[in-house]
């Protein structure tokens, strides 16, 4: 352990805890070897052969989103923002997930599209596809870098491992099993991770509630923390009245429309899981099933974060978050510290394994999506147009390894950033919002031209990046691009998303009006008004239809928003 040790750890793992972690690591690498023979064609490597049921695809879809950032980062956000963190699980997810399942999936699935850039090529042209693929690849590398950094940071702070050792060990392990079987092994490990996460964190808020007294006690003490900590919407008329420092407009348009619709309806990393479903009904059900898990995860994660917040404010509890090296509270330490507080040996091994699983499966998801987009949309479409099936699979394996190498470099960049969620939302506001503006407009407006799409996306992306840079380099304050004074980092992210969305959409519409559109017959199946929506061939009972399950999910969404209004 000498070469691994960096500092005195907060958690001392017993041999039994190490054995649980070892069982998981050996298991997933062994699984990669087992699955290798099932991933020989490009379709099998990149799309897992399109054989999955709605449940497997739905669990994998949700798992691809349940990375460590989602769980550890948002638990930290709940400490910082109180119940407002639930917006990320409700308005920031559910409407977009249901929209994807009900309206967008028939487009994506019936066209047998292998990637979102693939759709852009069919709808617009090659240059739009390449631009989107390049931006998406960049995002995957950046997000992977954050994941790796987070894993290494947790290992360093809690277990005393050296940061560099953790980054490289995780990267090598993920490269090993994803490069063997591509999306199949990524999906398998994601589904396994899904259950490990629930096993590792489900009891955490329960123990927290018992420790504080009861859920009612936690709620009562949350209301005493400060104004706006215990209400989702009632405190959003005035940005000074809530810890997010945002108004309802920024939450709905920035998070709900700009970021959430961008992420859930156009991010290939997660949509790729729905593409692996065996038929259209299963593909449509995939994000709808995912929306239930998303809300459940929100309850668990936000509850855990709120317990940590309440304990932190109670000086007699002995619970304090860690301090950052550069000063300030390290909110991301909330969940691991709760584990250390309640989990004895054995259980803490499971908790640590769940955290490692989150990070490794998140990496696997990022890398399988990166390699698919790189191989199909950059390598096959630009570099080597006549690539054979074997060459594509080989390139898939090579790009997985190369992508992880770049992600390691990204981890070093992420190490210098503030909280991971703030950084993640910053990336999303720059990269996703302009893309979704172009894709959604392209689907509903047949007059939109390839030039309009390309320049709208490019200038939207560039302007968002410039706004981010100006704020990052402190040329302007975080309120500069927001219509409110005193806006925080997160509010700046949401408003950047709104502006870049509007710039991309405005330019796309403006340029399209002055350039030549494609002929209607070329757009059949690609634009809503020119497409006869194909319904599922199989007749199923009403309670098995995507519409029914989406309606129940929407009702739950409304209920949670009203209950915690």
């Amino acid at each position: 352990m000498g070469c691994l040790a960096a500092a005195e750890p907060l958690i001392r793992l017993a041999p039994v805890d190490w054995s649980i972690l070892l069982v998981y690591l050996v298991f997933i690498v062994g699984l990669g070897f087992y699955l290798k023979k099932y991933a020989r064609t490009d379709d099998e490597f990149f799309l897992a052969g399109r054989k999955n049921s709605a449940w497997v695809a739905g669990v994998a879809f949700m798992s691809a989103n349940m990375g460590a950032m989602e769980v550890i980062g948002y638990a930290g956000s709940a400490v910082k923002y109180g119940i407002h963190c639930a917006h990320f699980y409700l308005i920031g997810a559910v409407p977009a997930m249901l929209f994807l399942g009900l309206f967008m999936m028939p487009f994506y699935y019936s066209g047998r599209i292998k990637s979102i850039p693939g759709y852009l090529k069919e709808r617009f042209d090659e240059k739009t596809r390449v631009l989107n693929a390049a931006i998406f690849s960049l995002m995957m590398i950046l997000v992977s870098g954050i994941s790796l950094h987070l894993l290494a940071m947790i290992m360093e702070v809690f277990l005393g491992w050296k940061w560099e050792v953790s980054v490289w060990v995780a990267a090598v392990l993920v490269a090993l099993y994803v490069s063997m079987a591509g999306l199949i092994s990524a999906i398998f490990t994601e589904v396994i991770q899904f259950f490990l996460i629930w096993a590792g964190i489900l009891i955490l808020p329960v123990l927290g509630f018992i420790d504080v007294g009861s859920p009612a006690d936690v709620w009562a003490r949350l209301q005493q923390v400060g104004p706006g900590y215990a209400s989702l919407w009632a405190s959003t008329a005035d940005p000074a009245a809530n810890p997010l420092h945002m108004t309802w407009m920024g939450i709905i348009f920035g998070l709900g429309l700009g970021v959430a619709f961008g992420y859930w309806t156009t991010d290939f990393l997660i949509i790729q899981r729905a593409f692996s479903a065996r038929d259209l009904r299963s593909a449509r059900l995939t994000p709808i099933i995912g929306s239930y898990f998303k809300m459940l995860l929100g309850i668990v994660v936000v509850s855990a974060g709120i317990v940590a917040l309440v304990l932190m404010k109670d000086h007699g509890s002995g619970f304090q978050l860690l301090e950052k090296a550069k000063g300030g509270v390290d909110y991301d330490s909330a969940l691991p510290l709760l584990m250390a507080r309640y989990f004895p040996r054995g259980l803490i091994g499971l908790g640590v394994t769940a955290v490692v699983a989150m990070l490794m499966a998140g990496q696997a998801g990022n890398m399988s999506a990166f390699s698919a987009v790189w191989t199909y949309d950059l390598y096959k479409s630009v570099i080597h147009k006549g690539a054979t099936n074997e060459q594509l699979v080989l390139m898939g394996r090579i790009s997985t390894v190369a992508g992880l190498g770049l992600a390691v470099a990204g981890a070093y960049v992420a190490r210098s950033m503030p909280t991971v969620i703030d950084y993640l939302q910053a990336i999303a506001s720059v990269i996703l919002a302009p893309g979704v503006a172009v894709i959604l407009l392209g689907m509903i407006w047949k007059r939109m031209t390839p030039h309009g799409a390309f320049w709208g996306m490019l200038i939207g992306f560039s302007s968002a990046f410039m706004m981010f840079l100006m704020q990052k380099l402190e040329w302007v304050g975080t309120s500069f691009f927001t219509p409110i004074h005193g806006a925080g980092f997160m509010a700046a992210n949401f408003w950047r998303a709104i502006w870049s969305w509007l710039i991309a959409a405005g330019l796309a519409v403006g340029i399209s009006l002055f350039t030549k559109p494609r002929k209607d017959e070329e757009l059949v199946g690609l634009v809503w008004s020119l497409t006869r929506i194909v319904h599922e061939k199989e007749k199923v009972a009403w309670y098995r239809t995507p519409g029914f399950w989406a309606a129940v999910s929407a009702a739950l969404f409304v209920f949670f928003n009203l209950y915690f209004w």
Partner: protein
Amino acid sequence: MNGVENTERRGMRPIWFFVGCLLAVIGFIVAGTGIYNWVSPPQTRTRLLELHTDLWWGLVILFFGLVLFFANRNSSVE
């Protein structure tokens, strides 16, 4: 694809089988440690140790894992 490959590839175990295997092993270890913690409490006491969460939660995971394992041990997917 030749016949040998076809035979090799046939009968991929469903994902639920693997989930069941892993959860059963981990549940067994956690529950076993829970019994040991009850008999011989660790020196570093965590909050609510007296609830023996490790034991009953380990048993829940073990049970869930065994259900998935036995329900899928003879299944395969094409």
